[in-house]
């Protein structure tokens, strides 16, 4: 029992130390980059967790001054106003945001909490209904808690607790995600995974948390888990092009190139203007000896970014392999115009001249 208590105490001390370290680091970064809205939002989040609401408010407002469309800072500020019972201010922000994003389920959810806590039950039910309509996560959650039954919102005796629970979950999840990303950046993948896992557990419908988890698992070399997390992210957000690209790279690392090929094709379809994705798709085509398609992708990559040197080198070599000497020479000469010192390309050009 005692050892359990002291372990908990040790854990708390460790956590506080980490918290202070992150806070100090962000304070230092803000001094260097005072106009970064991201940093202002992050420090606000950290201060809010510690109950320093006045300072937190100042930083959220600063973040929004720098970037008025900053969604997370808006959520955090309205959350802070709800928590400090400054209903009018919270309502003003949320109504403005709902006007801008009428399909954002989380905004309706926040308004629902606000109306419920100010005794406007009918309006609260209306907003929760909208949150349920716009996102299945809220429907599943409220059904489980019997707030949503047979198409009707029931704000029963226990509803306040239910509403507050989901309200806090979002906020805590953002916090754990932020800490997880910080730890990952510091090269501590194991701890990062714990924090990101907490975030994903609190809000399983947030694709970003799963994508972040996937990235850290991939970094760690836990490829099957990375694949699983990227797949979860893509199930929630099927138009997340970089999710497909990252999944493709992981498949590449374990030599499952058929899956890598399928994913990279999807990534390019979603993000046709990303030259780097086209380059990678070209490599996959070329590995399959589908040279025409590889050349097509490389040309597209070069149209997007004419200075993409590797795309030009690959294209030159591709022409050379097909004995299209004239085109190969043309590509090599273009490369040498950019990098006249490139001996490797000069040798290739001399060999076919």
């Amino acid at each position, binding site marked *: 029992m005692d050892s359990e208590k002291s372990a908990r105490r040790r854990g708390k001390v460790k956590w506080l130390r980490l918290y202070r370290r992150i806070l100090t680091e962000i304070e230092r970064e803000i001094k260097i980059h005072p106009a970064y809205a991201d940093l202002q939002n992050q420090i606000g989040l950290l201060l809010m967790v510690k109950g320093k609401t006045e300072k937190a408010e100042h930083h959220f407002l600063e973040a929004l001054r720098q970037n008025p469309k900053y969604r997370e800072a808006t959520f955090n500020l309205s959350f802070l106003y709800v928590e400090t019972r400054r209903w009018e201010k919270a309502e003003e922000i949320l109504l403005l945001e709902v006007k801008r994003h009428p399909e954002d389920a989380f905004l309706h959810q926040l308004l629902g909490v606000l109306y419920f806590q100010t005794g406007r039950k009918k309006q609260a039910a209306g907003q929760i209904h909208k949150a349920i309509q716009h996102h299945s996560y809220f429907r599943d959650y409220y059904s489980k808690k019997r707030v949503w039954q047979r198409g009707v919102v029931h704000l029963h005796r226990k509803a306040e607790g239910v509403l507050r629970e989901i309200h806090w979950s979002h906020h805590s999840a953002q916090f754990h995600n932020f800490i997880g990303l910080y730890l990952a950046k510091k090269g501590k993948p194991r701890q990062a995974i714990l924090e990101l896992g907490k975030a994903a557990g609190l809000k399983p419908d947030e694709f970003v948390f799963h994508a972040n988890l996937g990235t850290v698992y*991939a*970094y760690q070399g836990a490829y099957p888990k990375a694949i699983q997390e990227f797949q979860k992210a893509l199930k929630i957000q099927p138009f997340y092009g970089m999710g497909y690209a990252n999944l493709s790279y992981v498949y*590449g*690392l374990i030599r499952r*190139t058929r899956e890598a090929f399928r994913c990279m094709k999807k990534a390019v379809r979603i993000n046709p203007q990303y030259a780097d994705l086209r380059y*990678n798709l070209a490599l996959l085509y*070329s*590995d399959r000896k589908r040279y025409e398609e590889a050349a097509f992708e490389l040309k597209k990559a070069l149209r997007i970014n004419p200075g993409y040197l*590797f795309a030009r080198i690959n294209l030159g070599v591709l022409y050379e392999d097909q004995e299209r000497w004239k085109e190969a020479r043309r590509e090599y000469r273009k490369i040498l115009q950019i990098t006249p010192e490139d001996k490797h390309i000069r040798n290739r050009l001399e060999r076919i001249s």
Partner: protein
Amino acid sequence: MLKEDFVIQSNVRQILIRSDIDYSRITFGTVKGVVYLRGVFKSAHLHTDGSGEGAANITIKSLESLEKKVKGIPGVIDIEFELTNWTKAGGQWILKRAQEDGGR
């Protein structure tokens, strides 16, 4: 040995991400098993380009480690460095000039 450029490219990316190199200033490509690395080479823990004896030694170790790891990827037949600040001559890494950008 099967030379799959995409597999090699994915491995190079992974090596760079996991290294202590500031890889935001490095670009890379793979052509028929030959890996190209271009840009400014800088250790993530250093705030200089690597000049100064201590810093240079750290950077050289990073360069050697990177070269070894990339060469260790199955299918890699050669590695071509086109770095703006470091060059290899006679098997030794030499700091070219304290220049900050270019090559991207």
